[in-house]
């Protein structure tokens, strides 16, 4: 009687867990080396989480270069920095520029990326070379891309001399289009990579069914292939918008400080407020306002990524598939992040 009362705890009600000998703990609970989390966890706490909180605090201070080292004693001004950022600074203007640029650039890169992916799907002589070439704009560091486009777009530069025009690409209103063009040039291969993965998911049987039915290439693309791309492409669009909004390096290198006002994007505006005009409090308030803008695509993205895959009970086929779908997302996100 007593034995039957102690035994049931070793078997789970759902029956997934094999019966274990009495008294043993499951593998995932035994001798957990949790100390291994400490170095990484502490670093992230000290260099990301603490500064984030400090940033929120600074946004409520009237902080300049003289009070910086004793920032605790700087005058507390509450939400005055936020009010100034919204009513009396170029912040709203630069939010508009950043968001419109990000949407415009992403919209242009999608068709290029999809066309590129479709063009290398089938084997042909030299396909490996073409695929490597497609990745070149993505591989080049953003500060290098900015440097040579800056040279090309000079008033006497090669762009104007080839086009026989006299446009000031690095000043005035044309700079918006110059920045958009360069951003398109460097960022489309990201869409290409995710579309390529999406194309590979189209089953051979689907291709065969389409050609048995005599579908022409356009019908086949529109009705058979594009629906497969919807998932990876919407992911690509979210991540691309996120990183286009956060892009600091390209406008910074392309135009230098001060930026022409038609390309005064949020990240550079925040940077100028702190390290050119030394209005640290105002800058922190601007950064937090821009975080609110970024939070919208970020929230969608975090919702789309599945965190846990239940690897405790041994993932089943469906879970494994979901797991792999998760894989592409953050990986792709951070390559962009490393470049921005």
């Amino acid at each position, binding site marked *: 009687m007593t034995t039957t009362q102690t035994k049931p705890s070793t078997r789970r009600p759902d029956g997934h867990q094999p019966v274990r000998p009495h008294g043993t703990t499951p593998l995932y609970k035994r001798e957990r080396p949790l100390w291994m989390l400490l170095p990484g966890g502490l670093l992230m706490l000290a*260099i990301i989480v603490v*500064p*984030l909180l400090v940033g929120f605090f600074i946004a409520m201070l009237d902080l300049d270069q003289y009070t910086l080292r004793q920032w605790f004693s700087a005058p507390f001004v509450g939400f005055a920095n936020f009010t100034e950022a919204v009513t009396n600074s170029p912040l709203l203007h630069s939010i508009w520029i950043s968001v419109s640029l990000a949407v415009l650039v992403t919209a242009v890169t999608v068709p290029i990326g999809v066309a590129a992916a479709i063009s290398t*799907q089938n*084997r042909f002589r030299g396909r490996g070379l073409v695929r490597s070439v497609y990745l070149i704009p993505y591989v080049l*560091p953003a500060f290098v891309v900015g440097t040579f486009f800056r040279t090309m777009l000079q008033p006497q530069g090669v762009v104007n*001399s080839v086009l026989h025009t006299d446009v000031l690409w690095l000043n005035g209103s044309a700079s918006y289009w110059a920045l958009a063009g360069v951003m398109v040039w460097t960022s489309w291969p990201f869409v290409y990579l995710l579309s390529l993965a999406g194309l590979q998911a189209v089953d051979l049987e689907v291709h*065969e069914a389409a050609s048995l039915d005599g579908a022409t290439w356009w019908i086949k693309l529109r009705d058979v292939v594009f629906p497969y791309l919807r998932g990876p492409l919407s992911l690509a669009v979210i991540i691309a918008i996120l990183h286009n909004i956060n892009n600091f390096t390209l406008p910074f290198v392309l135009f230098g400080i001060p930026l022409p006002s038609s390309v005064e994007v949020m990240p550079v505006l925040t940077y100028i407020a702190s390290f050119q005009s030394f209005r640290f409090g105002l800058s922190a308030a601007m950064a937090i306002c821009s975080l609110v803008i970024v939070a919208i695509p970020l929230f969608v993205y975090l919702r789309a990524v599945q965190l846990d895959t239940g690897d405790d009970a041994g993932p089943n086929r469906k879970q494994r598939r979901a797991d792999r779908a998760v894989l592409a997302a953050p*990986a792709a996100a*951070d390559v962009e992040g490393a470049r921005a």
Partner: protein
Amino acid sequence: MSGYSTTRTRPTATLTESITAPGGGRRPKRPYDTDVTRLLPRWLLVTVIAVIVAFIAVPVLYIVFGSVNSDVAVARGEYFPSEFTLANYADIWSTVALGQGLVNSILTAGAVAVCSAALAVSTAYVLVRFRFLGRLTFLRGLLALQSIPGTLLLLPVFVVFANIASATGVQIIGTRWGLFVTYLTFALPFSTWVMVTYLRGLPKELEEAARIDGASSTGILMKIVLPLSWPGIVVSAIFAFLLGWNDVLFSTIMTTPNTRTVAVVLQVLGTTQEGGAVPIYGQMMAASIVCALPVVALYLVFQRYLVGGLTAGSVK
């Protein structure tokens, strides 16, 4: 894996052959070798590839041509060099401290790559193989932290470092250590996530067998997990390296002339000389190529791993 794919593709391959090649009987074709999967007519395929390759090649070849051209000719707007010279590649080293910048970048980014891969693999091992309170919060934190824009953190990190310096007398801003710690931390969330997804794909059975043989968790990590996960480790190390190499935001603020990374040195080359009579465009192009070469070489060598790491089975 290979067993899986052959059993799966064999019937479809024969079906495909019966459609496309009635003569049949040759070696079984792999999917995507066949005409059935062709999406574009040939003329359109050639056009698309030609347009995209030209779109990429025109600016890229411009850097190459500009780097062997004279400054004046580049400033005039020449595309093809009228005179060929390699002097730019010789001059860049003395015009600015490009060599010092390369050393700083390689030391910082290289150390970041090694350390972040080591921390990532041990952290990911615990996150994937053990259950504990706060595990899901940790995973969620990894995703959220890697999406925080750097411009938001630049000022607070600067303030924190400045305060540590005034409190303890240890200078951080301006040193390679300061950059190293910053890049390492920003690389960690992503590197760890790459390893989490990689380790999830490894079979547990080997580790369980080792555990039955009496191995400790640390022993299993060192002797079983580590040797099996080199592809994942390479990907996370390279992405960490690129983060350090490509950064401009932190390195413009947190370096002195002696600790400048190559990204900042290139900015110095580009901005300080433009006040002179002729901007040194030729040298800028040559220096750009020098800055890009290590990164391009890394990509070419590890291309298969990297593209796989980006998209590995993303949809199916």
